[in-house]
């Protein structure tokens, strides 16, 4: 089979962020990756991506609105015919900036909110007041005419308020609500004992999400991603490594996914040294887990191998220390016991203490 062209590019415009969520998807050692791409380098990245077949550009961070050139970068993406999507924590959005983004042609804006409860939302974001600013940002986005997506990461400390979270999204006029259960890589894995929900919490939440999906069909789309720890089979991370998706990180490193920097031993090429086309089609890292030839057993003889591609490489590496292993979230994985242990702890001995995503903590993990 010929190597497919990618559909979507994630641009992590910066690793800087005013918030400190303990499940951040940035790498643990983000503080080490300084030297952000310039405006022109981002323009070049987008031009190369469009030529490679990318049709969707997602802009995130860190907090992308910390970049003063976010509007010109988005304008360039739109001029290339890309569909543009910006994910922000919301605290820096102003009426002027919303209008500027609209004018630049931004198609869709996603605001993340940590909880429907103000106090808990602030606590999860690292303590400084941010909830009121996030609500204001969601309203500004709607007023500026954007299609608004609300993103709420679910975990054991907010999943019990799912009904209130859905009501909040309705009240804010979101067209789409992403309820993403925490993926336990990177920061979230460090905080797993405090974030992994108990089984009863997950089942109750799934019922609430299903009922809301029915009730709001055609008005608000609700995406509810089950936590993979509670699934029988693993997620098809990225729909297959190096198949539809790629990430350019703040410093120009080109990654199969934003967390793949957690896999030690992989070498990541940088846009400053090699073209995106060459990295996608020919780099060692992108070719390593592409397709199904590399899959171990029991994946290799599994009828689901073209469905989930052995699951998440980061999770295999972080839990087992071997990125070529079957994702332990799979009930058929030889090391599924590692996930079962964590689930048992979620029933009997959850933790409270959180390690926040700060530069100081990142320096310790480097």
């Amino acid at each position, binding site marked *: 089979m010929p190597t497919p062209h990618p559909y979507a590019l994630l641009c992590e415009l910066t690793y800087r962020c005013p918030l400190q969520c303990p499940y951040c998807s940035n790498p643990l050692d983000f503080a080490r990756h300084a030297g952000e791409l310039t405006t022109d380098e981002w323009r070049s990245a987008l031009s190369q991506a469009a030529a490679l077949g990318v*049709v969707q550009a997602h802009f995130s961070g860190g907090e992308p609105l910390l970049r003063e050139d976010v509007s010109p970068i988005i304008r360039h993406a739109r001029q290339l015919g890309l569909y543009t*999507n910006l994910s922000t924590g919301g605290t820096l959005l102003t009426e002027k900036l919303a209008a500027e983004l609209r004018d630049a042609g931004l198609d*869709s804006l996603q605001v993340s909110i940590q909880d429907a409860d103000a106090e808990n939302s602030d606590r999860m974001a690292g303590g400084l007041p941010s909830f009121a600013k996030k609500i204001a940002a969601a309203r500004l986005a709607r007023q500026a005419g954007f299609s608004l*997506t609300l993103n709420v990461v679910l975990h054991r400390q907010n999943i019990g308020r799912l009904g209130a979270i859905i009501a909040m999204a309705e009240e804010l006029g979101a067209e789409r609500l992403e309820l993403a259960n925490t993926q336990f890589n990177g920061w979230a894995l460090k905080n797993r004992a405090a974030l992994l929900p108990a089984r009863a919490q997950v089942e109750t939440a799934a019922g609430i999400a299903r009922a809301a999906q029915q009730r709001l*069909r*055609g008005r608000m789309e609700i995406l509810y991603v089950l936590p993979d720890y509670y699934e029988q089979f693993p997620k098809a991370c990225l729909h297959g490594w190096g198949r539809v998706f790629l990430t350019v990180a703040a410093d120009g490193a080109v990654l199969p996914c934003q967390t793949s920097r957690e896999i030690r031993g992989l070498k990541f090429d940088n846009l400053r040294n090699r073209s995106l086309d060459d990295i996608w089609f020919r780099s060692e890292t992108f070719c390593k887990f592409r397709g199904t030839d590399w899959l171990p057993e029991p994946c290799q003889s599994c009828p689901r191998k073209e469905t989930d591609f052995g699951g998440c490489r980061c999770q295999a590496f972080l839990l087992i220390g071997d990125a070529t292993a079957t994702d332990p979230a799979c009930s058929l994985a030889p090391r599924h016991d590692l996930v079962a242990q964590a689930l048992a702890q979620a029933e009997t001995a959850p933790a409270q203490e959180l390690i926040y995503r700060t530069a100081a903590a990142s320096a310790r993990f480097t």
Partner: protein
Amino acid sequence: MPIAPADIPRLADKARLKWDAVREKHLLLFPEGVLVLNQTAHDILALCDGRRTVTDIVAVLAAQYQNDTIAGDVTGILQKLADKGLVKTAG
């Protein structure tokens, strides 16, 4: 809401049609997603201009394809996309 013959469908503001020159396919783009369209789906959506009714669209395509059974395809595709919030209707 079921799609009715008198409804006037249009693409949601957040959705956009695109000709993908790399893959030589018609696409429908929307937040966090891409649908690769077959020719029929593309032709239906291209006629969703906020003026034509479902009945009008069926008539145009029945003539274009010389096919009287196109109505089911039109309703089916529009219903699927309306359920995803990608097609809006006025009636």
